[in-house]
């Protein structure tokens, strides 16, 4: 397959994944705002922006940290070069570029996502329809993944697409965790407070992990346990360990098909063994923020190595 097609698929699925995770994060912020009252929630909305890496862009526009302003900025503002609608459009542009590599069903699901969301996000989103909008984003990105799962040949094309999904998802989960722990925690005295618990719940919600975690831990929200769940629990589909196990399997598929491994494989295996050979105690001893920063950096290096090894661009 063309290097440019691999590049297009990789970024098509990164964009879709990021759009979906952004919707989840907004949903979590929205629920917190509902429970805490709109005025008290400005700190949570700011944390949403920090997680998305949009805080300085937002601050430059001088907007208020309220639900309406922040959600519209994140979802649809032309001032935001990484808005959700832009990501969906980017996914669709890439899908158009790799049209010959994907099935008609995957293309139509992607094109329809774009048509529906473009229409839905053409007007400002209010509290009345935010839930519906976020739900639509999640539903449509899920449809694309489902069409992939059900119709695509399991070859290099499929692997490049899934690699995009897993690289992006690992990055997003790591950022969500980091922001809560590093930015939102002003002092240790806060630990265990009602505010603290609410924030942890927001973290779990934004990775769709609240139900699974509650089920496993009988409702006890405890930072270390949550961090362990999000980083090391290979059963949870948005954990770093899960993403990396999948990534290893996608790249092993490529190595089998192509008859060779590349430097990206070595980088990935090193990163995976760092995850597998550590426990949550060691991570906290090392420093959670430091651990996550190192992970995000190495995740980016792996993505760059994949792009170089498989000739995404010349």
């Amino acid at each position, binding site marked *: *397959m063309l290097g440019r097609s*691999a590049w297009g698929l990789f970024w098509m699925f990164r964009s879709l994944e990021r759009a979906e995770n952004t919707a989840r994060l907004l949903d979590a912020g929205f629920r917190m705002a509902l429970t805490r009252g709109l005025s008290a929630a400005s700190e949570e909305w700011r944390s949403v922006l920090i997680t998305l890496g949009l805080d300085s862009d937002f601050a430059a526009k001088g907007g208020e940290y309220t639900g309406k302003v922040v959600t519209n900025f994140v979802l649809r503002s032309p001032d935001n070069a990484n808005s959700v609608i832009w990501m969906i459009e980017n996914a669709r*542009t890439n899908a158009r570029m790799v*049209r010959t590599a994907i099935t008609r069903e995957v293309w*139509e699901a992607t094109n329809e996502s774009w048509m529906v969301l473009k229409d839905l996000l053409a007007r400002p989103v209010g509290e009345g329809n935010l839930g519906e909008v976020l739900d639509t984003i999640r539903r449509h990105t899920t449809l694309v993944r489902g069409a992939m799962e059900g119709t695509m040949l399991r070859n290099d094309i499929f692997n*490049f697409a899934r690699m995009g999904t897993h690289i992006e998802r690992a990055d997003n989960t790591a950022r969500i965790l980091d922001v809560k722990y590093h930015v939102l925690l002003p002092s240790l005295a806060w630990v265990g407070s009602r505010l603290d618990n609410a924030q942890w719940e927001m973290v779990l919600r934004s990775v769709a992990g609240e139900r699974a975690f509650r089920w496993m831990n009988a409702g006890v929200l405890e930072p270390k346990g949550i961090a362990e769940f999000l980083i090391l629990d290979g059963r949870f589909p948005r954990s770093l360990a899960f993403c990396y196990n999948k990534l290893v399997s996608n790249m092993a598929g490529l190595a089998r098909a*192509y008859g060779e491994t590349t430097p990206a494989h070595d980088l990935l295996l090193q990163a995976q063994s760092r995850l597998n050979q550590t426990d949550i105690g060691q991570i906290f001893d090392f420093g959670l923020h430091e651990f996550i920063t190192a992970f995000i950096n190495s995740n980016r290096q792996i993505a760059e190595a994949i792009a170089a090894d*498989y000739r995404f661009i010349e």
Partner: protein
Amino acid sequence: MTLGKAGLLLQLCLTGGHADAAEALFGVLMNTTTLSCYDEMIDGQGQVRPAYAGYREWFDAQDPRWMARQGKEAESFFRRTGITFNVYGEDAGQERLIPFDMIPRIITADEWKKLSKGIDQRVRAINAFLHDLYHKREIVKAGKLPERVLAKNDAFLPQMVGFTPPGGVYTHIVGVDLVRTGPDEFMVLEDNARTPSGVSYMLENRETMMAMFPELFTKVQVQPVSDYPRALARSLAACAPPAANGNRPVVAVLTPGIYNSAYFEHAFLADQMGAELVEGSDLRVVDGRVCMRTTRGWQAIDVLYRRVDDNFLDPLTFNPTSMLGVAGIMDVYRAGGITIANAPGTGIADDKAIYSFMPEIVEFYTGEKPILKNVPTWRCAEADSLAYVLDHLPELVVKEVHGSGGYGMLIGPTSSRAEIAAFERKLRANPDNYIAQPTLSLSTVPIFTKAGLAPRHVDLRPFVLMSPGEINITPGGLTRVALKKGSLVVNSSQGGGTKDSWVLAE
């Protein structure tokens, strides 16, 4: 809706006004106006013609409201599928649908047999003509084509002189634009020997019709078109260059990219053929072959179905600023390293100056009388013709030989006396630069409107594939229809739509 009502609409058409001049300038059917017209569905007595008998029986039994809903559904289907074209200029970046009309255009098996014979003959002649032009120029020596129409002609590529493309095929894909003026009167309006487009609409229109009205196709037997992509792949593979060494050729489609107006078609054809869809940035000449950058390194391409113009093909040979082509591809081509479809330089065969010589060209190379007529054309370079044209300006369409886009053109019937007089001066000053054609009365086929069936002007572009020793013509083609009443403009950017084109089974 009753037959009588259709007849009435036809009456309106008979007295319908002329095409708006400004609009007609860019239209494909521009040299014609509505004087009286032949309707392909209904005859002069208001009776349904035999070709449409089966269809009308079915149509009259349908609920018009249900039909209208189906039409809406077809549109949303096209949007979802992404069968759109990009618009340049004002609405840049917008994607538009080409309106689809659900009333099919129907041709009988006998009509088609005759048409396809004529098309076959014409395409063979075009290919032989190209070979001759770039080699011995027998036709010029024989005095059938004056040297002057070749001199100073941009479509003629000196780089092709003395070179024979693999398999001797110049025009792998040809679209022949036909118009109809009567029961047995088809004329060639234009030959498209460069990179004719529209075949994806031919295929998708049929898919859509079959999805919307499956039972209709059990009632009326229609010759299938769905084999086109496979035939195209076979035909291209049969023209592999010497460098392919008899291995299964690697075929790729070269597109200018996703912002090109015909991108959908490029992707569609590549997908249907199982070929790679490449852009200039994917390609490079490596070890004497044109290669594409794959995830595993550079891979040689044997046959390149290019959808970029000659001028952009090779920055080393043609337009040096082109980003759409491959530097050095012409050298590889001439050394037998790749097949380019269509061959560079085929544009000379569909040039307006050449068009008027097509009857002579067909006869010269096939030794047969042309089966398909040209629209009669007066070459003002010839004294007798010029005299006739000057005497009949108010009823003729006069065009510049090398002009494009309708500049420097006179549509006699819609022009004022002053305009005609002004044009006459230009014509007298430089007669070599002009040709003239009569105004034609084009056939109509009904479209579906809220008020029922209404006749509109149509043309037809059949698609022809050529490989060594074989010419394959898909039964039917693309019917373009001017959706505005009385209009002759079938261009998709100006209110033109498309129809499914049926050739009935024998």
